[in-house]
């Protein structure tokens, strides 16, 4: 038997069109063709251009990065801010790769 969480696939994973609507946010109630097209174009513009990737990044690996980004992003920003303040007073670079010439 599949684990229970297998039965709770988010909408955007089961249908390609719905996925685009969902990722653009708050547009799932739009119904007219023009609005849909506008949202689609906007989604295409917002979407990053994939790099020349010869590796399969793996869907699960890509999606978990989005989750981890939320978890660690804010903490990292605070850490960097703190390091900058410290560097200001001590005059030392934040780490070995934070030379001013970079």
């Amino acid at each position, binding site marked *: 038997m599949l684990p229970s*969480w*297998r039965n709770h*696939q988010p909408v*955007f*994973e*089961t249908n*390609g069109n719905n*996925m*685009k609507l969902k*990722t653009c946010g708050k547009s799932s109630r739009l119904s007219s063709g023009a609005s849909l097209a506008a949202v689609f174009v906007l*989604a295409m513009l*917002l*979407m*990053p*251009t*994939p*790099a*020349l*990737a*010869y*590796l399969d*990044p*793996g*869907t*699960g*690996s*890509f*999606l*978990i*990065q*989005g*989750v*981890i*980004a*939320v*978890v*660690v*992003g804010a*903490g*990292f*920003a605070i*850490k*960097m801010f703190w390091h900058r303040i410290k560097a200001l007073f001590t005059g030392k670079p934040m780490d*070995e*790769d934070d030379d001013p010439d*970079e």
Partner: protein
Amino acid sequence: MTTPMSDGSHAASFRDPSGFLFHDKGTLYRQVNRSYEADYKLLQESGLYDLLVEKGLLIPHSEASLDLARGDEAVRILQPEPVAFISYPYEWCFSQLKDAALTTLRIQRLALKKGMTLKDASAYNIQFHEGRPLLIDSLSFTAYTEGEPWVAYRQFCQHFLAPLALMAQTDIRLSALLRTNIDGVPLDLAAGLLPWRSRLSPGLMMHIHLHARSQKKHQSTQATGKKTQVGKNALRGILDSLKGAVTKLNWRPGGTEWGEYYDDTNYSDSSLQTKKDLVGNMLDRTDSRTVWDVGANNGFFSQVASDRGMFTLAADIDPTAVEQNWRACRKGGRPLMLPLVMDLTNPSPALGWDHQERDSLLDRGPADTVIALALVHHLAISNNVPLGRLAAFFARAGKHLIIEFVPKSDSQVKRLLATREDVFPTYDLAGFEQAFAGLFETLDKTGIEGSERTLFLMRRK
């Protein structure tokens, strides 16, 4: 060395369409294909190439003539600085793999600063060159687009984080999983083998356990995950989190502190020095550039070769001894030494597609000289290898051989025979010399002072 393909390209260089390695008249070149032209230009113009080379993180290259091109896709031909010996992650001790991981993350951080990103994070792209880990694949970079997740994140976790966590928290011998899984340790396997306490580490929880669950959850869905947005700052946060997770992983054999572990030897300082001098005198007669010290322990005698300016592979089965050697190398002073974990009774085989992606140990030879000290009894008695077969192996491994014969009267051999029947009637000095005489010419033979052991210098016939 691996047999080149019909067009001269290296048999292991086929995954990335950006280019490939090939040999021409014994020199290694890297072709850059048209599809990678823009990224190659960016690597140079952004200053990333100079920055990484200056920091010793990327192999330097020069540009060679396009006349060497294989096919009409070529836009550049690069000639990378040669690496003395290509080693593989399943041959590295814990800290070598850890240093390679941190090097990869550092390169990715610097790449992001210059508007590029690593498109792969393969442990096989890192090599130890002049005592330091560096990236050997100059075509690993691509332009970074804001919002894009790291395409090599999965590979980094499989090639580095998972094996390091398993080695540190489950069993050091699990580095062997890198030998059976050519694209790194599958994360569900790692998650299952790691102890429960690994979940208490936020880094391991996110990058291995949750990552494995996410992979399993989405393995059969049609979604590509390409809609996932990760801002540059958040991506730097992920890299910082990976760095933290790797840095926190440590391995201490049997809970001991480094330094205590190998101080206790059976030899007095003076007899060790005498043996060192004997080995050195023999090495001086070989005119060697490459030396393989097999059964090198912590590299004590390997230094005799590396101090003479010879590139020295110091291979041992004991991950603790190799770890200690690598830590000494890292401190500096041993740039020509490469410590590796290697079980000579089952040395690294040829692996991967068509058996040609990763070379066997012997495929990477022969060495000018092989040193085998205090080893013969382990191979002949513990592993039942007939002396004639030992001679045949060493004849394939090197042109010269400095080998120590340890007789049955030696306390170490007595210990090996204490718990088993002695089925080795020809294991004596005369039998040893006879077994090697067919393949080797003895140039020198001398008793080691203060022991019943004999040291030989031989040359392959």
